[in-house]
């Protein structure tokens, strides 16, 4: 029970501009379910990818010991052969192949060098019986719901007969019964001596199934705990950082908490298909509203709805007394909304283009192609914001992709400030950036608020929310569960609202 199957020590992984992992460790013992926890961006997925050969750790750092030998997997197939099988968060199967083929790709039963489809299908049916799935295994995978696909992905992981099975958010799309079935299979594997890594943001499930917990935060190892000995508030503290006691009396918003400020933006019973339900949010003029909630609670979905990325199915939005019904980001921008998206790399920066162009683009898109901002004007804009936001760069022509995360975020903020929006929505503005830039961005939010800007900001760092927000809205399970302001707005209360089960 106590011998370790897989031990990772001092693992680091650096991407341009981001330190995804810094000296992280993880120890897996045979026959245990080990939960790997942390907020979005804490480094869980990166760690899993390093462990399973999909990514290489930084050269010369750390070591990985599997089955008593030092290993450094260079590809997923190498890790699989060694006995580490992974089910990724997004279903990583092949939509065009049949269920049976997906289950046995690379391990098909053969006779006379030919694949035996009938035997493969038979085995597939038996395997899926464990998961209480009775489906046509010859049908292509994309005919099935995401939940079924997820179960099939897990079944594939199980079929590999691995020593280590990694399940990254396996329950995200499953209903209660399916989760129970999955847990049954996990118990079974555990008794067979398989070590299971379980990543989930459903803390109930973590407490229900796991034996041990390793917590990561901001790419760093926080601690390894025995589940039964770790009270829930302690766990949330570990995940979100800072001891509760240390979080008192830092409430210093950019403008006074006034109750009677006129509303600038109103969200009234807004529903989005497969996303948020009955969402009511109010942003008064010149105030900063914080939004708290765990990953998947609906915070990003609210931002997307306001910005016209997802279309609203029912309910109304209002901006400055006019109805807001954006069908696209372009329409939302015209109405005076700006959004710094959560995923800076894919939705925010345009990597190869210069800082100057990245700053000018949003204003330029709003002006249209014909009213061109000359290079001199772009330069003036860039200079203004490089100066104001203290973006660290030798010159404005540097490609934004080469900047550090914090400076990239400042450039994106600058881009939106240049459009002079009425409502600035920031989705996790401080994620993945270093401490210095962190404080600067917080100060900037306060300053903007002081100058009369209205903001809606999501963050998983509660302490920071309390510091700048006039009011905090708490989301859970894609609904608003609480609204805290004044004396009630403390990290403890927010945490209670988030964790309440």
């Amino acid at each position, binding site marked *: 029970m106590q011998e370790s199957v897989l031990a990772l020590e001092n693992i680091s992984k650096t991407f341009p501009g981001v330190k995804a992992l810094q000296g992280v460790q993880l120890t897996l013992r045979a026959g245990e379910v080990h939960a790997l926890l942390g907020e979005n961006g804490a480094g869980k997925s990166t760690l899993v990818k390093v462990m399973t050969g999909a990514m290489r750790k930084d050269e010369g750092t750390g070591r990985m010991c599997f089955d008593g030998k030092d290993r450094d997997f260079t590809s997923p197939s190498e890790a699989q052969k060694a006995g580490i099988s992974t089910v990724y968060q997004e279903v990583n199967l092949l939509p065009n192949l049949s269920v049976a083929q997906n289950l046995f790709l690379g391990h098909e039963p053969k006779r006379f060098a030919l694949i035996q489809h009938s035997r493969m299908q038979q085995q597939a049916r038996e395997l899926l019986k464990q998961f209480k799935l009775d489906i046509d295994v010859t049908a292509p995978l994309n005919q099935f719901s995401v939940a079924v696909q997820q179960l099939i992905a897990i079944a594939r992981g199980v079929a590999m007969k691995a020593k280590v099975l990694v399940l990254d958010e396996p329950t995200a799309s499953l209903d209660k019964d399916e989760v129970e079935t999955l847990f049954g299979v996990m118990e079974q594997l555990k008794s067979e001596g398989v070590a299971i890594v379980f990543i989930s943001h459903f803390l109930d499930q973590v407490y229900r199934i796991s034996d041990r917990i390793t917590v990561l935060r901001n790419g760093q190892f926080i601690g390894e705990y025995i589940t039964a000995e770790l009270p829930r508030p302690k766990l949330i503290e570990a995940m979100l950082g800072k001891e509760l006691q240390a979080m008192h009396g830092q409430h210093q918003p950019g403008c006074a908490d006034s109750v009677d400020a006129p509303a600038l933006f109103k969200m009234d019973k807004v529903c989005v298909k497969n996303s948020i339900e009955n969402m009511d949010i109010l942003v008064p003029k010149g105030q900063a509203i914080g939004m708290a909630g765990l990953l998947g609670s609906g915070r990003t979905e609210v931002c997307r709805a306001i*910005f016209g*990325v997802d279309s609203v199915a029912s309910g109304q939005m209002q901006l400055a007394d006019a109805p807001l019904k954006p069908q*696209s*980001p*372009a329409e*939302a*921008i*015209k109405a005076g909304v700006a*959004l710094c*998206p959560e995923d800076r790399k*894919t*939705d*925010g*920066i*345009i*990597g*190869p*283009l210069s800082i100057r*162009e990245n700053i*000018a*683009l*949003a204003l*330029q*898109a*709003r*002006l*249209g*192609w*014909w*009213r*061109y*901002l*000359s*290079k*001199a*004007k772009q*330069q*003036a804009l860039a*200079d*203004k914001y490089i*100066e104001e936001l203290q973006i660290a760069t*030798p*010159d*404005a*022509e*540097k*490609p934004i992709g080469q900047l550090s995360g914090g400076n990239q975020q400042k450039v994106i903020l600058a*881009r939106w400030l240049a459009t002079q929006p009425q409502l600035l929505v920031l989705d996790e503005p401080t994620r993945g950036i270093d401490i210095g830039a962190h404080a600067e961005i917080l100060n900037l939010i306060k300053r903007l608020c002081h100058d009369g800007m209205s903001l809606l900001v999501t963050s998983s760092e509660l302490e920071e929310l309390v510091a700048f927000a006039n009011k905090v809205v708490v989301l859970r399970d894609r609904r608003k569960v609480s609204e805290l302001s004044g004396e009630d707005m403390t990290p403890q209360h927010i945490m209670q609202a988030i964790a309440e089960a």
Partner: protein
Amino acid sequence: MSQQPQSLSIVNKVDSPADEALIAARKARYSPGKSTNALGRYLWPVSALVLLLLVNLFMDASFFSISYQDGRLYGSLIDILNRSAPVALLAIGMSVVIATGGIDLSVGAVMAIAGAVCAGMLVGGNYSLFTVICAGLTVGIVAGLVNGGLVSFLGIQPIVATLLLMVAGRGVAQLINQGQIVTFQSDAFAFIGIGAFLGLPFPVWLVLITLLLSQLLLRRTALGLFIEAVGCNASASRYLGINDKGVKLFVYGLTGFCAAIAGMIATADIQGADGNNTGLWLELDAILAVVIGGAALSGGRFSLVLSVVGALIIQTLSTTIILSGLPAKFNLLIKASVVLIVLLLQSDVFRQHAQSVLKGLKGGKA
């Protein structure tokens, strides 16, 4: 025409004193606006062209000599300019398509269609030159918009969408003139292909004018920036409020326009339209020209000038091979080698390999 850029920049001049102060501050803090990065992009293609020209000069001392006769310049250099005109025109359009991450395989066929339309109208003799040229250009733009529509609104992969017109386009070109290779007598139209203006062959002027107009259209409006943004990161561009579908429609339209001009040159050159052979395989040369100009096929930054330089390199290379006394049959093989070298130089993986090998060598010496 040459006045325009200046006057535009005057209009756009910094107007507030505060901004001027900022610019002054910037000048004090930053390195000048043109960073070394931009210079580096021009360095390789241009020096390759210069090197090729010098090789030619070495083999043929009279290579650079240009004579003036009957109101027209003659010489190898002029010849290269003239012959590279169709590919250069196609490359101008192709660079913006490639910048959005697309590709247009149909430009050769569009050349044939535009040529066939013009030739067909000229044979009857019922239309004015202006109408004929407008018709040719319109056909090209429409063909381009069809491609663009398939790509942006139906969401079909560019390589697939333009393959359609590549295959069917030649049939359409033949259909227009009932499969005949029509020849026409029109000195005015023939001027497009074989005429000369101020000593330079007219196709060269067409390239220069198209280059200048496109450059103005793309770089004195925000279109060029939008194209690069969409090509670099389509998702982030949407979050910025850029109409990526409109941008894509536009670039294919522009390519069709350029292909139509190239088609008219080819048609005027032989004073006839051959639906089967006009512009045959020129799409590949145009793509090559863009790649040699240093653009990545995955989209992003583009430079019209560099793509034209790429076209010139391809043409000069052919001339070099002839001059060198190597049989013309080596032409394709050398072209293939050039492509392979350019491809390798563009591959990040190769660059990393090469760097580590170089490091190893240096380490070995030390």
